[in-house]
């Protein structure tokens, strides 16, 4: 990927004595699709608003192409935003909304007209120029908001939960379209969402945040397959998070059973957390053939797969399989070494807190 475009250094924002964003560091490259992901109140929107210039950082720096961006007011930043509720101007029609930025820049009117119609084509709203924005559907308003931002040819587009107000089907369609648009216009997208599936679908890089702190930065595959701690594992997708002991390199003990894994570098007998994704647990009908044994206690049909709860002596496992095992049957469970993700045990009190939320 291209050169570094934006750098956040020790960026901090304090609201009423609480650190909404706590000294985060992040590097964003050209043409990257970066998603800030986390539960509400994790500081992702505040971070985005600081990049957009709507919030002033209390500490830290924002660098844009190596230049300090902090003192630059929003209207002078080469960054545009798609707001959560679109924030289209109700007293202007679609054309006027999209032309707003260009008119301020005093572009000649024929240039404005051609740019606007090019944008309308990009967002698939040709012929909507004279329409009143209140008469548009949520999805259409969304597209106008994107066109209004993109027409200014920003280096970076900030999107604050842009699909949050849309229904599921439209959301999925718009995800694909947004991704497609990003590839075509070739600009950096910084996207904020609390929807982990959306983040996994669209991003080049996901930044998982919690309580103002970055938990993990990585590709969707990294984040999903190798969550760095309990929070990330819990937040991204469904998972079995198990307290375990690292006996030695490549050997982890779960509930008295020592399993092979691909992780190393832990202390001998160090307590750790292990993540096993529900789809990575294989079930065998003969309990003796499994590394772990248990009894099926619940089966729910989910369309693509069955969601089963299997209770062992010590805990309950969530398992996704396309084959159904009846409730009450005694089964064995196997996990491949590379499907076991071993994580350092974090601050235990904090984990419990987040678990109880």
């Amino acid at each position: 990927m291209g050169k570094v475009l934006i750098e956040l250094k020790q960026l901090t924002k304090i609201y009423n004595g609480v650190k909404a964003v706590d000294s985060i560091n992040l590097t964003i490259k050209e043409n990257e699709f970066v998603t800030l992901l986390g539960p509400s109140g994790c500081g992702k929107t505040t971070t985005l608003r600081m990049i957009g210039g709507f919030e002033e950082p209390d500490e830290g720096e924002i660098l844009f192409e190596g230049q300090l961006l902090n003192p630059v007011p929003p209207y002078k930043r080469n960054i545009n935003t798609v707001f959560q509720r679109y924030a289209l101007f109700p007293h202007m029609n679609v054309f006027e909304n999209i032309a707003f930025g260009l008119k301020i820049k005093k572009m000649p009117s024929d240039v404005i007209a051609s740019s606007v119609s090019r944008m309308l084509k990009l967002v698939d709203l040709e012929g909507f120029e004279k329409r009143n924005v209140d008469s548009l559907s949520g999805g259409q308003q969304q597209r106008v908001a994107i066109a209004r931002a993109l027409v200014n040819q920003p280096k970076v587009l900030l999107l604050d939960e842009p699909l949050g107000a849309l229904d599921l089907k439209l959301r999925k369609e718009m995800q694909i379209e947004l991704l497609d648009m990003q590839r075509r216009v070739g600009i950096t997208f910084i996207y904020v969402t609390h929807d982990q599936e959306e983040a996994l679908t669209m991003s080049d890089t996901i930044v998982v945040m919690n309580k103002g702190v970055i938990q993990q930065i990585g590709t969707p595959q990294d984040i999903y397959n190798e969550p760095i701690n309990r929070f990330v594992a819990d937040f991204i997708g469904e998972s079995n998070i198990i307290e375990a002991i690292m006996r030695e390199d490549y050997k982890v003990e779960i509930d008295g059973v020592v399993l092979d894994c691909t992780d190393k570098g832990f202390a001998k007998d160090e307590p750790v957390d292990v993540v096993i994704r529900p789809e990575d647990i294989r079930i065998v009908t003969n309990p003796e053939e499994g590394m772990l044994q248990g009894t099926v206690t619940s089966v729910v049909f989910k369309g693509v797969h069955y969601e089963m709860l299997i209770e062992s002596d010590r805990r309950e496992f969530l398992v996704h399989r396309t084959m159904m095992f009846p409730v009450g049957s005694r089964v064995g469970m196997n996990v491949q070494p590379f499907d076991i993700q071993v994580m350092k045990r974090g601050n235990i009190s904090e984990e419990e807190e987040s678990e109880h939320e």
Partner: protein
Amino acid sequence: MKKKNPSMNSSASDHHHYKKHAPTSTRYLRVLGYPYVIWMVIFIIVPLLLVLIYSFTKGDIHNLFSLEFSADGYLRVLEPMYLKVIMNSFWLALISTFFCLILGYPVAMIIANTNPKYRSILLTFLLVPMWMNFLLRTYAWMSILSPNGILNRFLEWIGLPRLEIMPGQTAVLLGMIYNFLPFMILPIYTVLSKIDKNLLEASSDLGGNKFVTFIKVIFPLSIPGVVSGITMVFMPAVSTFVISGLLGGDKTPLIGDLIEQQFMTNRNWHFGSSLSIILMVMILISMAIMSRIERNNDREEGRTS
């Protein structure tokens, strides 16, 4: 839909609500409206009709059946002296409305931009003077502006020449602006405080500095408030007689003073009625113009639905 003028929106939905339940509940509730209807007929419609009748007649006002048709009242209005009074009334009302607008708009903006915690305090400051009687407030202005009033004594004290503004137009204007300013501020404040802050951020995001944001976003969205503010100031300003009577002396009679004079001093109810009807028609015309402006604004905003 959310972005529509809130007052319009709520009245529309109330109306809808009312219609939906009309067949069952309003049959009984309607009775509650009768006292008001009776009140209106006795104290508004009948007097208005009387004024209309007097304005087109001459003769003994105490005997309705002896009245004869006459356009004298209206013809008299065309005399230069009275035309001048009418023109003067409109001119003063226009100027005071204009000053109320340029003084009131920034105040409304300041209040709307204040932290909601302190907003109500500012609004109270604005409204406290209105708790006092209108007449009393105008008397207060008399004691400030009169030749030996507080203002002149103060000017003398700091060694400046005295100001002879009362009685006179300036004093009337000051009194009008003072008394009607809250009626300009409140509707504008209401509209401004409802503007979505995201729109201002969007404008800034798209390259608009504060000035551009005001011209292109804030002001156009506040026009409904400006229109109702203008209406609420202009109407009482054009028909006032107390303020001009107390602060203007005999120098600058307004149409309100003229009407009062015809009814109370000259006992010429026919001419007084003609003047009243003319004033009413002129106010109606100005209101029609204002609502036309507002509707045009709405159409530009594409909100004709």
